[in-house]
């Protein structure tokens, strides 16, 4: 067994995940090239350009990845609290010495590069959360553990909010999946949470009374179907009443508590207001770019909307516009499929881990990647509000690429060590 282990160190690495990772990185690189393409400077490796720099970032990310695979996986477990503390210090530091870019004080200048500590905050939080939850002697989930776990998450969230970088902060909430998988959150709570978000959006979109009427019909239908048990009827009635009150509260909050500009932002995202040159400009242009890609796209470097700067932030947050415009629906579906494959794979990897630490960490990685994937693409096509977070491995930027790569490769390191660790360490 030891022999086999030594012989097949590379054999135990999950090459599928690495393949998906590499595919995403390269897709990102080509699309950054297309997004900032300048016919007079066509080289792919021109270091003055974003895609030139991205090629360096990808290369360094690869080296970082290899380094991580070489490091003993126990290092990450034992140093989880230290990494967390260091990142917290960095998050504090960024509030003091950070450089203000685009309204967020999120960057620490390091020579020619800028470091974005919040990107590494997710890594540190995942590690510490895994560290903490896996070290619980009490095997059944309890409120105290949940509370401390939530605190581990909320501490960096608070600091990121202070920058203020709402988008990055929201990403931490995706860790709800970790708590769910570990049993700290029940399925019912998850459904209620999902329903709450859904109802919140619907309440703003549809007239509240119509919505309540529809809700009554649906609840009535289910109550009728399950009429044999009295309990079901009561549950349905309670659900209906609570939902109705909730809808009215949302409406009240929207009308009375939100400032007009906040209302505008919500209205635009919900499509209730047409405002192509104002607040909705980014979203509108982004949808035009993606929509104009049609079924097969305009072809590589042929996109006009992204190339001519109609879409803002086109190599970072709105990189998906380039994909949508130049590769069309088909290309977009390919990209989404790669993501879904990666996410499903990560969950499968998580479940094959023998240590709780590795599993919890793996779910953390999957949750964060999923959140970024959903919110980023969702905002470019107008199904979620415009929240400035990068598309993992695709968007331009060293900090983001490195932090996601580290996140992923640490997981791969745990995965490659799972047999050894399972037998030897715990």
């Amino acid at each position, binding site marked *: 067994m030891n022999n086999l282990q030594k012989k097949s160190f590379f054999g135990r690495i999950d090459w599928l995940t690495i393949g998906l990772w590499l595919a995403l990185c390269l897709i990102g690189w080509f699309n950054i090239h297309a997004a900032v393409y300048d016919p007079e400077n066509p080289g792919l490796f021109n270091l003055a350009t974003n895609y030139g720099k991205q090629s360096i970032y990808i290369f360094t990310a690869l080296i970082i990845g290899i380094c991580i695979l070489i490091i003993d996986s126990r290092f990450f477990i034992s140093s989880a609290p230290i990494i967390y503390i260091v990142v917290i210090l960095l998050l504090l530091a960024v509030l003091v010495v950070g450089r203000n870019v685009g309204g967020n004080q999120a960057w620490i200048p390091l020579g020619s590069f800028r470091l974005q500590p919040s990107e590494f905050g997710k890594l540190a939080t995942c590690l510490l959360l895994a560290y903490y939850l896996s070290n619980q002697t009490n095997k059944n989930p309890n409120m105290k553990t949940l509370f401390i776990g939530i605190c581990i998450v909320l501490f960096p969230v608070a600091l990121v909010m202070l920058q203020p970088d709402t988008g990055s902060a929201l990403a931490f909430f995706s860790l709800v999946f970790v708590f769910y998988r570990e049993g700290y959150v029940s399925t019912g709570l998850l459904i209620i949470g999902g329903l709450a978000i859904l109802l919140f959006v619907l309440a703003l979109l549809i007239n509240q009374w119509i919505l309540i009427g529809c809700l009554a019909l649906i609840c009535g239908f289910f109550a009728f179907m399950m009429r044999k048990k009295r309990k079901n009827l009561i549950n349905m009635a309670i659900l209906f009443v609570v939902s109705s009150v909730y809808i009215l509260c949302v409406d009240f909050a929207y009308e009375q508590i939100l400032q007009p500009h906040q209302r505008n932002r919500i209205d635009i995202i919900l499509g209730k207001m047409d405002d192509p040159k104002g607040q909705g400009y980014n979203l509108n242009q982004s949808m035009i770019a993606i929509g104009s890609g049609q079924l097969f796209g305009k072809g590589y470097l042929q996109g006009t909307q992204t190339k001519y*700067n109609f879409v803002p932030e086109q190599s970072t947050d709105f990189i998906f516009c380039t994909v949508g415009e130049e590769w069309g629906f088909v290309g977009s579906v390919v990209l989404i499929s790669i993501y879904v494959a990666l996410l499903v794979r990560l969950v499968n990897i998580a479940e094959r881990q023998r240590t709780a630490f590795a599993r919890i960490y793996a779910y953390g990685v999957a949750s964060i990647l999923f959140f970024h994937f959903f919110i980023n693409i969702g905002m470019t096509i107008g199904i979620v509000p415009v929240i400035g977070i990068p598309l993992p491995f695709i968007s331009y930027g060293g900090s983001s690429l490195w932090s996601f790569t580290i996140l992923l490769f640490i997981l791969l390191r745990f995965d490659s060590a799972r047999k050894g660790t399972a037998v030897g360490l715990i």
Partner: protein
Amino acid sequence: MNNSYFNRKFVIQGIFIAIALVIVARLFYIQVIDDKYLLSANNNVMRKKIIYPARGVILDRNGKVLVQNEPVYDIMVTPREVKDLDTLLLCDLLGIDTLDFNVRMKKAKAHSPYRASQFMKQVSSTVYAKFQEHLYKFRGFYPLNRTVRSYPDSIAAQFLGYIQEVNDRDIEKSSGFYRPGDYIGASGVERAYEELLRGKRGVENQMVDALNRPQGSFMEGKYDTLAVTGDGLVSSLDKDLQILAEKLMKNKLGSVVAIEPSTGEILSFVSSPSYNPNMMVGRELGNNYMKLLNDETKPMFIRPIQASYPPGSVFKVVSALTAQQAGVINDQTVFYCPGGYRYGGGRAIMRCTHVDGATGLVKSIKMSCNTYYGYVYAKMIDSRGMSGPKAYDLWKEALGKFGLGHKLGIDLPGEKPGLVPTSDFYTKRYGSGNWRSGFNISLSIGQGELGITPLQMANIMAIVANRGFYYRPHLIKGIGEKQIVKEEFTEKISAGVDAKYYEAVIEGMSQAVNQGGTGAASKIAGIEMCGKTGTVQNPHGENHAVFFAFAPRVNPKIAIAVFVENAGYGGTWAAPIASMMVEKYLKDTISLPKYIQDRIYNGNLMPKPKVKKEETIKKDSTKNNKPKAEPVRTALVDPKKQNESGILVHHSQVRRIHE
């Protein structure tokens, strides 16, 4: 190992896949189903750039340039792109002050900060040359090539016309061809041949970025169209002859029209006073237009085709010809002239300037005998075995064939038909259809209600020169590279009088010029010119001088009509002008004695400035803004207004007719 929640893996994976499906569904909708994003994308990125075609050039019959295009430059500015501007230098180069600069900039910004708008219109090439050297310093400014019309010799203004920016009505009528800022021919040939001259606009589909900066062509120019230069025109005008004619007509009111009889091509077309066509170009057009419009001598009035006068004695040529054709006289017919024609039972008299005694047809033309034509007219109307009005209608029909009383169809807008009243007009005036020749005898000598344009006069000469037919007079003899002639100008039109009847008349006209007749002042050595003078009664001032002629007698090359308002006797002013024109055209020299030439060149027959100014102003305000002494109006014939204006000479008033 806490694996009791293992199944939740499927819930989480399920959520991942469900969300991905939502995204795919949304993408399917906006990318595949909904087309509006594609349209918006093209709107975003495409700018149609209009390429203005050069207008067609107009040459004279010998290939010399009458109108050409001169490059000018519109200076455009995109306010957002203006950076680090040296305002003073820019103002200095363009010759504006900073105040003006600010106004223009503000206007451009108001139009759009991102889109280019006109900063300064039609900057001349000399100004632009200096500006261009510094152009690199003015970010956000760029030039747009345009052309304006340029007239190297400043001649033939009314013939050439001018172009101006289209107005809303033009745009509407053109069903989308014209756009604001385009130019359209407003008068003259520019207007008549607008559709040929204007060419075809080209479109360049440019791609622009979010800040409206050009980024190259759309689809590699697949949908671009080239601008097509307007067709060039070859005019029938002889530039040198035109220059001479305008020089001769300087400081005089009137017209000169010269026609090549064998083709109907107009060799010279003068309306005096004229104006410098270069005034009607560029930024000063508006001001100059108002100046010309308010000028009392009406330079914008195209006299050769718009002014109609009683023709006077030159009309006798037509009378003689139509009477022969009608068979009421022949070349042997003799009438006795005692110094006047008595009519109305002898109670009234139409005087002749001399006592010609027994007068035959040839002599009647040579000496311009009023009596003779009194008899001729009387025979035409009274001795044809029918009622007066009926005979008159036949006569009117004959005149129509000579091109009188209707438009000739020249290729210029604004042609007037002149006037030959209908028999009904007289029947109405006299209360019954029993009127006879005595009632409107003055028509016989080209007075009374007759109205003929100088063009029609020249055309009569062309008919006589051709012995019986004419081609529609026209100013453009060739269109485009193939020199196409319009079909209507190649049609030979008969004047309704057989060729055999012309010789006697031509003999009379020849004698009038060459054998001491009325047109002796126009005699040219070595050329047998046939001509006829006329003096048109003008109750408001000096009479109008008329002379028309053709030459040479055999195989005529030129037919000409000269009409000088307020010049008095036809032989004094009109004949020498015609003589010089004909000699210049046929022999390229002028042999007329220098003192006569100088008298013509320096003669000033412009109406004197009005003394009683106050009175005029009063009249202006009360009488529909038509000053009575205004010379053009006096020449206009409109029977309906004749009582009101009193400018026409009724036959009973005709007492003193020259010649």
